[in-house]
């Protein structure tokens, strides 16, 4: 909503406040002023001129040589290029020395040999947006239609000395979508009285009811409909004051009749529609639901197909307007219109909203109906418009209004106690202060010992409960005056849950290991959703995605992490290590999907590097595996998290493991399949993804201290030659199984293949540590256990001792 301060000052005295000060006060009062715009875009020295003579330029077809009276002793000669320049016009002249928007300075000039002392201006040249310029002046200079005096400041007449506030209205403050509503608000904020227009109508002897009847089919849809008839209208341009009002509000002036309805819409917040009575097509107005498939061509010359969800105005046969949204082209006021049927109605806001939404048609009218208008202002607004048509279009207003429905509704009572106000706000506002605030708002009330029963006027439909009144008091009392306190309720311990605490640990651990945290989008494309699995579950798909790229919820974090890797690689950032913790979304069979928090990581390029010491450690399977193992150890799951050889379509068949927790599959780790690397244009890349919830929610025994060793332990190293396909973990498992309770540590310290070994064989070297917490181990105890180990590996794997 744009608010001209010149206009607003017609209703409330703004004396003593600058535009910026007003903006600040209004904002603090609760309606945010988004911008303060001066309509003068840097103009100086533009006056009214009277064109005394105007002849063609001797050497240029399109130029005219004019003698213009600009209120100085002698008329000046100005060369003008506009086609619509003519002798006798009153025009805006930028004198020599004047400045136009864009710091454009006017100097003496010679045009094709003829001297020119100034410039005759178009409205665009004075900084008015083209879309707001009346059609007749769109292509040429502006011509005053009112009586004006040469030499006077043109800005005053064109309202270019005005300041306009742009309000950012919240949906509850529909009352401020019109100048009267804003006058009430600013009056309350400034604590000044307001004066509102009181239209005085002279009505003719003829009755409106003889011209038209009104029938509303459903009063719930249309609580009030009134039709006023105005005869003998002359359609012509509006006077400058009306043009100025509309331009300052960002509406293009059309002609007096249309401009008046727009003006009253802005002033009263009441959408009106003027039909050409002679083109209406009947003598009855019928308001009803549209028939399914019924068509209407609206004012914007577009054919609209309606349904029974939509409310229409008809002439008894055909729709002539979509109620509250837009009129029809057939009954539009035109240049030759002489009789106007003026509609002033109250339509159900939900129905207007529905029509507007379905038809994709938002108008100043629908915007107001949707948010709710003042029921008690419908009739006064139509009277205001009728009065202006009488005044500005020479119209004769017929007696009475053809109408259906009640013209007025009663104010609602809402009660609030002063003690409650102070309890909610934490303030100590007195009874008299509360009373003063309601006075400022012009709310009537009764006060019994601090209990206020307020009659909330229908112009403020947003106020329905006690808390709404508390807000009114609070905002006008000023939130700056509310103290800052600390809560006095019982104290509560604030702590992270076990899950949150562990998640923070895991994040820090990953970062300690060199990974950076990424955050990627949850919405993905169908292709990316199924990228890591051929048998992905059914999609959770948006009903109306904005694009296919963001149409489904992801089931894996890796595709977007890989996308992040690609983005960086494309920018020559090659050593990458990212992780992300986020939810994936899986069908659950119930209303809401199952949301599983996952952890995923991607690594490529060098993991550790120290160039001048020639240290380069590329990320590889064991780097990333070590990181996952460290997470397990950090969470006390080192013995329960295992890696099992696995195959996954998008991962390297020989370098992939399933991650299991207590034997249950919770994720994968591996190198991207080289074909996928090629497809994504990525170098050797390692990834993992696991169900973080399983890991963080696993029950872990309390940390308990283990006694420090009191006796020496004995370590025996053993190198076993086995088939190269045999997995180390299997050998370890067997060693552990037979080693007995004195075997406390099994460490793989060497893997060898090559020279001195048969083809197809490898050597695995383990360091086995034996320990007895009760006493010093005997040589024999160690020997027995160790022999059992050697025997078992030989029997089970044919393992030979490597010499």
């Amino acid at each position, binding site marked *: 909503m744009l608010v001209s301060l010149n206009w607003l000052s017609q209703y409330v005295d703004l004396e003593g406040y600058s535009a910026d000060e007003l903006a600040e006060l209004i904002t603090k009062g609760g309606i945010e002023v988004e911008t303060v715009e001066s309509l003068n875009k840097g103009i100086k020295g533009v006056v009214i001129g009277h064109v005394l003579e105007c002849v063609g330029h001797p050497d240029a077809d399109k130029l005219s040589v004019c003698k213009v009276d600009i209120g100085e002793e002698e008329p000046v000669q100005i060369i003008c290029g506009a086609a619509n320049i003519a002798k006798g016009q009153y025009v805006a002249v930028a004198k020599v020395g004047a400045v136009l928007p864009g710091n454009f300075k006017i100097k003496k000039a010679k045009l094709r040999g003829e001297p020119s002392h100034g410039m005759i201006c178009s409205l665009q040249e004075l900084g008015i947006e083209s879309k707001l310029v009346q059609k007749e002046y769109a292509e040429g200079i502006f011509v005053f239609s009112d009586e004006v005096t040469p030499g006077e400041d043109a800005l005053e007449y064109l309202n270019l000395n005005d300041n306009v506030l742009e309000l950012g209205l919240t949906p509850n403050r529909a009352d401020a979508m019109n100048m009267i509503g804003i006058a009430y608000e600013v009056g309350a904020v400034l604590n000044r009285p307001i004066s509102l227009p009181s239209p005085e109508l002279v009505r003719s002897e003829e009755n409106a009811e003889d011209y038209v009847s009104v029938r509303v089919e459903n009063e719930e849809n249309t609580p009030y409909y009134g039709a006023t008839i105005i005869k003998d209208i002359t359609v012509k341009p509006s006077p400058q004051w009306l043009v100025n009002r509309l331009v300052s509000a960002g509406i293009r002036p059309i002609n007096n009749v249309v401009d008046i309805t727009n003006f009253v819409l802005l002033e009263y917040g009441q959408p009106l529609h003027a039909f050409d009575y002679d083109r209406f097509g009947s003598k009855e107005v019928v308001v009803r639901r549209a028939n399914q498939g019924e068509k209407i061509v609206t004012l914007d010359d577009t054919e609209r197909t309606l349904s029974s969800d939509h409310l229409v105005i008809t002439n008894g046969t055909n729709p002539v307007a979509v109620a509250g949204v837009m009129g029809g082209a057939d009954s539009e006021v035109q240049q030759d219109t002489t009789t106007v049927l003026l509609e002033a109605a109250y339509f159900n806001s939900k129905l207007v909203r529905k029509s507007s939404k379905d038809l994709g048609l938002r108008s100043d009218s629908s915007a107001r109906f949707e948010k709710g208008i003042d029921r008690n202002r419908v009739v006064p607004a139509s009277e205001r418009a009728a009065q202006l048509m009488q005044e500005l279009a020479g119209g004769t207003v017929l007696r009475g209004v053809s109408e259906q429905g009640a013209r007025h509704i009663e104010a609602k009572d809402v009660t609030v106690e002063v003690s409650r106000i102070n309890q909610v706000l934490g303030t100590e506002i007195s009874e008299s202060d509360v009373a003063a605030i309601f006075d400022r708002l012009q709310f009537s009330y009764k006060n019994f010992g601090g209990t206020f029963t307020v009659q909330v006027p229908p112009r403020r439909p947003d106020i329905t409960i006690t808390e709404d009144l508390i807000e009114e008091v609070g905002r006008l009392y000023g*939130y700056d005056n509310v103290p800052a306190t600390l809560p006095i309720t019982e104290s509560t311990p604030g702590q992270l849950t076990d899950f949150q605490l562990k998640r923070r640990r895991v994040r820090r651990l990953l*970062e300690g290991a060199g990974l950076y945290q990424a955050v990627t989008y949850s919405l993905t494309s169908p292709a990316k959703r199924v990228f890591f699995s051929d048998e992905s579950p059914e999609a959770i798909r948006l009903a109306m995605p904005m694009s296919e790229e963001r149409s489904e919820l992801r089931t894996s974090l890796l595709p977007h992490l890989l996308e992040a890797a690609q983005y960086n690689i494309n920018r020559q950032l090659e050593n990458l290590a990212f992780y992300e913790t986020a939810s994936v979304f899986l069908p659950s069979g119930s209303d809401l999907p199952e949301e599983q928090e996952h952890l995923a990581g991607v690594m490529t390029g060098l993991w550790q590097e120290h160039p001048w010491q020639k240290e380069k450690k590329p990320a590889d399977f064991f780097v990333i595996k070590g990181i996952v193992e460290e997470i397990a150890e950090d969470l006390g799951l080192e013995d329960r998290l295992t890696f099992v050889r696995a195959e996954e379509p998008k991962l390297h068949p020989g370098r992939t493991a399933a991650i299991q927790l207590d034997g249950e599959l919770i994720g994968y780790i591996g190198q991207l399949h080289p074909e996928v690397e090629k497809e994504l244009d990525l170098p050797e890349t390692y990834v993992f993804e696991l169900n973080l919830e399983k890991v963080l929610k696993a029950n872990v025994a309390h940390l308990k201290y283990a006694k420090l060793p009191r006796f020496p332990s004995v370590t025996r190293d053993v190198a076993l030659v086995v088939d190269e396909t045999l997995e180390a973990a299997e050998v370890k498992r067997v060693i552990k199984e037979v080693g007995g309770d004195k075997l406390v540590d099994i460490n793989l310290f060497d893997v060898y293949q090559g020279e001195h070994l048969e083809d197809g064989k490898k050597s695995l070297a383990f360091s086995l540590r034996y320990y007895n917490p009760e006493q010093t181990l005997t040589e024999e105890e160690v020997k027995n256990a160790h022999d059992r180990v050697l025997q078992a590996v030989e029997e089970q794997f044919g393992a030979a001792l490597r010499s």
Partner: protein
Amino acid sequence: MQERLQTLKEEALTQIEAASSMKELQDIRVAYLGKKGPITEILRGMGKLSAEERPKMGQLANDIRAAISEKLDEKTQVMEKAAVEEKLKEETIDITLPGRPVKKGNHHPLTRVIEEIEDLFLGMGFSIAEGPEVETDYYNFEALNLPKDHPARDMQDSFYVTEETLLRTHTSPMQARTMEKLNGEGPVKIIVPGKVYRRDTDDATHSHQFMQIEGLMVGEDVRMSDLKGVLQSFAKKMFGEEREIRLRPSFFPFTEPSVEMDISCFNCGGSGCSVCKSTGWIEILGGGMVHPNVLRMSGFDPEKVTGFAFGMGPERIAMLKYGIDDIRHFYTNDSRFIKQFKHI
């Protein structure tokens, strides 16, 4: 004999003086003081001497032995010290060469901001609640006093999955979810960080996915002044002790009264600059007193308890705090961007 001893001594001392290695010193020691050395030999021939001269000569020989030995020790020490010094000199390194980096990663800036805020509210006795990102229409709207057809639903065009489920448009649904579980028994003190989604085209200032932190406190005698106090602590912690806050009236369907909170501009201190659009104030978050309908729908009696709620955007806070100019940076994951948020 005496003469010979003196000569021997001088010879030895000269040799010691001239020696340039530990080996030479060792050889000298063996040569002069060893069992086969000249002094031993001389001492052996003392039998020929008179009884008077014998002790004298013995004394002299021992003195000379001691003198040579002492000199040897002295020289050995000098040479050892020189050797150590030499060795240390060889071990000298260029201490200006770069150290081996401890290659650590770091938090994403949004997590950094969120954890900072979490810790602040944990310290004030709030706990952290988390909830589903796909929500029912009921929790996302209706339980927050936004019935179907409410015009305020336009404020946040949303991504529906089915007619009744959608990607949450704020983390506020956890208000109702948390309160419902408590059967009307307070106090409630939670903050709810998490991802939210709105139908916006991604550009420098809009993102279809972003973070939100919702706060809720419900109990007996929770006042708007408490909201102001809590938010003041928050503003000072996040943006500096000298920050002032102001509350401006606003509108949210789930709070009444509703406010927006501005902080005094940290860039210009309030005199006006481009960061604060020359107003001296920067809008940070919205909040207010929990609407009685919201309390009622979640099983709390608005006659007995009151509450405040607020919601803020970590992206906005991070953008202001670190001067980030484009919201898309948060989701592009350019490593040069994320790495900037390493230090404290």
